């Protein structure tokens, strides 16, 4: 679909990245020298910036837009549209854009929403806003926010070969584009979407991200190049100063450039410094090259973003480099909206005596998803745990159970018990106590985390006993320590995996990603009916059925 406007001005661009830099070559030892060298050569990504754990896409976008608005000296009341194009919004319901509009002080006369797009976010976002502005008076302004966050490897992540590739390729970035309706500004565009390839890049609600690299490559080399050539022929009458693609890797971009007859001087890049920054790629590239652009005065840019969908957009516009800000670095993160971000924030969870690495890891995961935690156990180890938490309101009970009952008015929605170092009789007494003291909510769920035994019978009996005592639902998650950390197709690359494990905090620690996922699930509202279920974390992910 082609089109053209004569009254849309890309007034300014700003972008932000986190300050933590991950150098690809630092990983020679860990991921393997040959693999890393080859990958860097192919992708061209020498470094990328990664967000620390709690930074979200919106944090980067907000920093970018605030600096941009200050620079542009825009009157906030003239901004009538805010579109947030990302694959990582803060909330699913409602749109994060509404909250951002409020935080920016845009007033109630603004329309704001999120759109789910990836690397083509800049182009399709600009094209959408350009359309929306047509019904508005001249001088009306709009903001487009794009980007996706890429986090530092957190301990507790399961690594596959794809994860290694992703780690070295994707960078974190957020951007803001200021758009204004002003006659005398030409904006020409094209877009193309192939829904038949929807499964090339996908993520279900409870799955990791999946990508069919070949399909994406084909799309890039055929469809993207073809559409660009057509655009060049049919639309680009004027000269283009620079082409700016979304920052897929060097291999892909070089090929497209070749097919379209573009040289290195014609194209702007930023992947060498920032990696693939998804929807923020084009803005970051403009910002990264702003000094070069400033030498020319106003420049004509042809941008082309392509990705998830699979779809693409091409946009041709003029921009004044004085309004392209240099890339901003920030690690800031806004935390007041815990209740939206946290999956379990109002869910009072009591974890009894987390005494081994596994249990501690579980507790940290629950903290990460915003659980309202209370821990019972030994003072020193609990205090050490708490010091690593994000949410500071975790309650520690280090005395007796009786004391705990006196201190807290809490009623627990869940009690998580790691059975490995705990005595079943003691557990029975503790649950009885909690039940007698009415410290358990009506729909309370007790989750036992335990190592596999011969049969499930003994466990079932124990679960029934606890359930009868307390009137609560009781569920179990069983794991086999050796089988927790694998994907079947690791093959001969276990060495790098082990090195990666040693690099993160807990030595010799097994990464029970699926274990904590299973526990999180059992505690969530979706599984309010789950009772007396036993989940086995066994060898393959596909057997994780709840």
């Amino acid at each position: 679909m082609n089109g053209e406007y004569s009254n849309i001005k890309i007034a300014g661009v700003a972008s932000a990245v986190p300050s933590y830099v991950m150098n690809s070559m630092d990983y020679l030892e860990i991921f393997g020298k040959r693999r890393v060298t080859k990958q860097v050569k192919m992708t061209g990504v020498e470094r990328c910036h990664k967000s620390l754990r709690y930074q979200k896409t919106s944090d980067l976008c907000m920093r970018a837009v605030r600096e941009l608005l200050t620079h542009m000296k825009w009157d906030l009341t003239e901004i009538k549209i805010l579109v947030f194009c990302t694959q990582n919004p803060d909330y699913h319901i409602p749109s994060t854009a509404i909250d951002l509009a409020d935080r920016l002080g845009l007033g109630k006369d603004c329309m704001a929403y999120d759109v789910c797009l990836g690397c083509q976010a800049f182009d399709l976002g600009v094209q959408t806003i350009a359309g929306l502005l047509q019904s508005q008076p001249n001088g009306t302004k709009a903001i487009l926010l794009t980007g996706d966050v890429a986090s530092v490897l957190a301990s507790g992540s399961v690594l596959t070969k794809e994860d290694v590739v992703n780690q070295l390729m994707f960078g974190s970035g957020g951007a803001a584009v200021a758009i204004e309706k002003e006659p005398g500004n030409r904006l020409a565009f094209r877009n193309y979407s192939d829904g038949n390839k929807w499964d090339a890049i996908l993520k279900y609600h409870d799955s990791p991200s999946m990508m069919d690299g070949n399909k994406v490559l084909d799309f890039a080399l055929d469809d993207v190049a073809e559409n660009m050539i057509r655009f060049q022929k049919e639309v680009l009458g004027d000269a283009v100063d620079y082409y700016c693609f979304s920052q897929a890797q060097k291999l892909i971009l070089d090929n497209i450039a070749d097919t379209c007859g573009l040289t290195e001087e014609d194209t702007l890049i930023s992947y060498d410094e920032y990696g693939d920054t998804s929807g923020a790629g084009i803005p970051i590239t403009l910002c990264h090259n702003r000094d070069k652009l400033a030498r020319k005065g106003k420049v004509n840019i042809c941008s082309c973003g392509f990705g998830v969908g699979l779809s693409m957009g091409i946009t041709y516009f003029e921009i004044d480099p004085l309004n392209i800000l240099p890339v901003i670095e920030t690690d800031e993160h806004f935390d007041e909206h815990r209740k939206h971000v946290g999956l379990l924030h109002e869910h009072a969870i009591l974890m009894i005596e987390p005494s081994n690495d596994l249990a501690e890891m579980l507790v940290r995961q629950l903290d990460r998803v915003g659980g309202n935690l209370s821990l019972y156990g030994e003072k020193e180890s609990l205090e050490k745990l708490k010091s690593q938490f994000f949410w500071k309101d975790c309650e520690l009970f280090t005395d007796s159970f009786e004391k705990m009952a006196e201190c807290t008015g809490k009623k627990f929605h869940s009690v998580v018990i790691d059975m490995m170092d705990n005595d079943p009789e003691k557990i029975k007494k503790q649950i009885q106590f909690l039940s007698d003291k009415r410290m358990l909510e009506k729909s309370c769920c007790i989750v036992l985390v335990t190592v596999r035994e011969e049969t499930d019978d003994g466990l079932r009996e124990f679960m029934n006993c606890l359930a009868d005592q307390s009137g609560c639902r009781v569920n179990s998650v069983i794991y086999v320590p050796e089988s927790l950390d694998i994907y079947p197709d690791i093959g001969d690359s276990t060495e790098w995996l082990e090195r990666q494990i040693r690099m993160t905090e807990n030595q010799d620690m097994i990464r029970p990603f699926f274990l904590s996922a299973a526990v999180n699930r059992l505690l969530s509202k979706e599984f309010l009916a789950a009772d007396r279920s036993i989940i086995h974390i066994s060898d393959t992910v596909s057997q994780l059925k709840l």
Partner: protein
Amino acid sequence: MQGEIEHISIEGIISAVPENEVCNDDYVAKIENRRVKKQILLTGIDRRRVTIGEQKASDLAVVAADRLLNHLKWERSEIDVIIFVTQSPDLVRPSTAFLIQDRLGISKDCMVYDINQGCAGYIVGLTTICSILQVTRGKGLLLVGESNAIDGEEVDRNALLEGDAAAATALQYQEDTTPMKFINHCDGSRANYLYKTLNNFAYMDGNAVLLFGLSDVADSVKKFISDNGMDVADIDYYVFHQAQKMIVDGIAQEVGIPEDRCLNSCQLFGNTSSASVPLTICLGKEKRKLTGRKKLLLCGYGIGLTWGIIMLDMDMDVVFPIMESNYTFEDRKKFYL
């Protein structure tokens, strides 16, 4: 954001609901609360539809869109833009609109994506798609739908309000049309009145939402009508988002709209979020056997908080009967763990 959209005509609307009808009275015994019966009476929501099995909003949307495109005899290659407004997407990524494009066999020269909006979704969706069609001068498909309603053990008093539905609207550029006037608002500072967390915990301060309806929304409607130099009586029918009877009636009373001018659907279908407005148009047309051109005022309001109004001149003969379907596409299960 307010303005006027010219040269766009609605060529057809079809809504689709799941076949499974849930009767709220059945819950009077199940939910241990004597007041359930009263709630059903006051909210006016007797029945609602809930998807079964794997069916999601996108399935209903495609069923409706497919019938609509066939009915209009539009070539699949003529569609310039597909927008799916939903808070029940099939996946986290890509936008569910891509699956819809694939299922409908629509060609690739098309702009495709999901917009995340709820109760005001139809208004926001219309504003966006019409804006884009003004430059392409072609045809577009606006789809809305939700499938978050639940039935069964986990139903609580809030769940009795929600229903599943989807709607497909076909639009096209046309020189001679009455402009559609619209206005869109949002207020994130009051987002805590009504929201859902990442795993579908729904929070609602019913009283605050009611007051929001009776003040901000009603005031906006009054102002919209008067700013356009009109009277309440100049509009043939009002279509409010069907949150529940008390709120809808309350807003109508505040604005001074006679009851028979309001179209409703919550009694039979509950609160269907983004699909609410088009579904109500479809049901209203069926029940009242409306025909010919009518002046409609559509008003969506709710989660965000957002609220929006659009006034249009519509040919009721292009509103087709509501479809019932349990059809579920198998394509999304490809890699499902």
